[in-house]
């Protein structure tokens, strides 16, 4: 059992990484670029103090987005709508947050609350559609993304945009009480000095708290048990007393609330307002990170850091004449490879567990091994 866990949690992702970088190297060789040199550039640039700080900053929204997706995955719900939800939530949070100024902690909490509420509302729509009308959540959440893009663009330009037309088009600046402070002073205690511009987001603590909360909710609570049983065998969960409709609503509300918080790290740690070019794609990449981390909070943290690192270190590639799209290729292959390698290894481990259990009890198992 112990070695089985090691195989699935550590060895599988490592193999997947090697495969992904190997295939990307082949792609580079095809266009006559030395992959070793390119990877060396990425590493040496990516491992500087500033790069590592930005790696973590990049990872924060991805991690929260992955949590939002993963909680749905756990019961077999596919919330593809994180992308639209976080954009809307960030816009509303930025607007509401700029309207007043109170004690810092309260101000930040209020902004978080607005973001979570908007995200939860946005996820509630597909949940109700599924429960009342049987609309599959993949379809409705994808379509709601487009509605969210259009709606946020409309609200931004016509309602929430700041009156004072400066060079940048953005909402009003949130007063400083609504900012989440940088953690650089804490880093300084440890003798880590970063150049200006690389500020470690204070949202890190909130993200860690969310990760721990996710773990307890999913793996330790009664709600989590109902959630996981619904994912593992919906008919058995139903017969055991889990109300499938309530479960869908609750899970989507939690997923949406988490989705609402995705944009908070860049919003309150960097922009302090909602600009027209507010970063996109955290929602979609979060799906990849959730897959990469097998819905496990620690796994997803590593996945988010990996994506954050690649995003950061790819910046150097343009300077050495390597197309930085190669990183997108690696990200794509890494997800595919993780899914495939994990499946192969977990089948092997499952077979072994079942065979050894059958051996210990000298009976033939009743069912074929199931992938966990």
């Amino acid at each position, binding site marked *: 059992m112990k070695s089985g866990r090691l195989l699935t949690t550590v060895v599988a992702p490592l193999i997947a990484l090697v495969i992904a970088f190997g295939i990307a190297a082949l792609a580079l060789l095809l266009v006559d670029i030395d992959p070793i040199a390119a990877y060396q550039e990425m590493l040496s640039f990516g491992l500087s103090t500033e790069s590592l700080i930005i790696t973590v900053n990049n990872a924060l929204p991805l991690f929260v987005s992955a949590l939002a997706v993963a909680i749905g995955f756990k019961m077999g719900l596919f919330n593809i709508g994180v992308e639209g939800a976080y954009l809307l939530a960030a816009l509303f949070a930025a607007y509401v947050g700029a309207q007043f100024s109170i004690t810092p902690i309260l101000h930040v909490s209020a902004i978080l609350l607005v973001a979570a509420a908007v995200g939860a509302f946005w996820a509630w729509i597909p949940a109700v559609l599924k429960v009342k009308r049987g609309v599959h959540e993949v379809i409705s959440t994808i379509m709601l993304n487009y509605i969210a893009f259009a709606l946020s663009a409309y609200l931004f330009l016509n309602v929430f945009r700041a009156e004072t037309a400066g060079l940048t088009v953005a909402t009003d600046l949130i007063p400083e009480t609504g900012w989440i402070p940088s953690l650089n002073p804490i880093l300084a205690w440890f003798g880590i000095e970063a150049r200006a511009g690389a500020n470690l987001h204070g949202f890190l603590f909130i993200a860690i708290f969310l990760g721990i909360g996710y773990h307890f909710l999913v793996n330790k609570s*009664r709600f989590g048990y109902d959630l996981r*049983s619904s994912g593992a065998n919906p008919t058995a969960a139903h017969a055991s007393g889990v109300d499938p409709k309530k479960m869908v609503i609750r899970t989507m509300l939690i997923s949406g609330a988490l989705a609402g918080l995705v944009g908070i790290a860049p919003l309150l740690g960097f922009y302090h307002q909602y600009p027209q070019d507010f970063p996109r794609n955290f929602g979609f990449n979060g799906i990849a990170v959730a897959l990469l981390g097998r819905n496990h909070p620690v796994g997803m943290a590593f996945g988010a850091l990996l994506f954050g690192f690649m995003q950061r270190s790819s910046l150097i590639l343009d300077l050495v004449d390597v197309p930085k799209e190669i990183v997108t290729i690696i990200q794509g292959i890494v997800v595919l490879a993780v899914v495939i390698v994990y499946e192969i290894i977990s089948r092997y481990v499952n077979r072994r567990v*079942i065979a050894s259990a059958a051996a*210990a*009890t*000298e009976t*033939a198992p009743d069912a074929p091994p*199931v992938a966990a």
Partner: protein
Amino acid sequence: MGEAPAIRLEGVTKRYPGVVANKDVDLTVRSAEVHAVVGENGAGKSTLMKIIYGMVRPDEGTIQIDGEPVSFRTPKDAIDAGIGMVHQHFMLADNLTVLENVILGSEPRSGVMIDFDAAAERITQLGNAYGLRLDPNQKVEKLSVGERQRVEIIKVLYRGARILILDEPTAVLVPQEVTDLFTSCLNLKGEGHTIIFISHKLDEVLAIADHITVMRDGQTVGTTTPAEVDARELAEMMIGSELPSPETRESTVQDKVLLRVEGLALQSDTGRQVLDDISFEVHAGEIVGIAGVEGNGQSQLVDSIIGVIPEATGEIALDGRSLVGLPTRERRGAGLGLIPEDRHRQGLLLGSPIWENAALGHQDKEPYANGIWIDKKASREQTEEIVRRFDVVTPNVDVPAAALSGGNQQKLVVGREIMAGPVVLIAAQPTRGIDIGAQAAVWEELKTARQNGMGILLISADLDELIGLSDTIHVLFEGELVAELDPSEITPEILGSYMTGAGAKRAS
């Protein structure tokens, strides 16, 4: 004779780490015969069949098909050699038609298109030839269990199988469907097909088989014919001890009504009356049996009482308290226990550890729950208690439920429901597909629970079980309770005729 046997195994041995699943097995199956392989779960039948079907490679021994030595690497090799397997758990895509299911993976082509007409014709042809009649364009989700099995059989015939392995084919069937299946088996035999029939229902084996091979502890203990043995002798060969009986002793029925169902009715989406004016009572210390051919409303009756189907109208009262309108969780909380008819569908989380399975249905109550949390430590202790008391054979409570044999999975389900101490226990097919030893254990537990004043609603397709255990038997026919019978005065034959509706006419 002189003809080579269809299958000949000599000295076949298969070892798993720490256990020998098959030891020195000899098996000779003649061409165009029905050859039964009987034995308890864990006796090595499944492993042996997997070896013949190419799913498992033996460590020692030889396999000959029609006199030719073979060495299968995958089921594909076995299929190419004319062997087909009908699994106990059907492997069909519900939302595809019969035709699509049959041709899946070996589609007949004309150019790049699939030649559906040719396939449909061939299926109809096969169906007519062997009494396996099916509408090729019907969706599988609309079919009864017996019809699904016919699809599986046609599927292997379509792939050219001459040797058919039927793994526990009657476990999921009702008496009438069993008769149909046997007719088909005889037709197949008549056309020169060879059938290996795996079962532990001895009456059926004696009725259909030409030869019977008995397995025990991974070995073949002998081959006999139905003419030479009766069911009791066969059972003794299998387990080496007395045959258990479901018979209950003196009545423990009390006056107190625990479950009252009155005027329960349910319509299907298409407006068919699935349940019609069902009324009955279950008293403390009473086992009330529901007999009926499968598909006459049993599943809907159970699901309506437990609340999984909330649309039913009428009164359901547990210990005087109406359950109507309550969600399943509150009904369970009020003291309803459920042993579901299909443990894989409604009773277990196969990929999850045993202790999580023990909590299923009781996850909101002590000892499994502690406030809003699941108490893992207490849950594991409770599970160990179930494992001990109900003799669930497992290395520990952390292995996935899928690792247990069917009988042990069932004992786990029965154990968790009885240990929870329900007021009324709904036991649907409580001994389906499990071996004699586990069957006796489950019967014993139900009898003890009855003695302790539990009310039990027993839904079963096993007529001996119904007659042996029940204090009262109701017959469910086309959604109606058509007769109430005293089990001490009837035989399986009489009960069987009531179940087909004939008895009801006679009674009126």
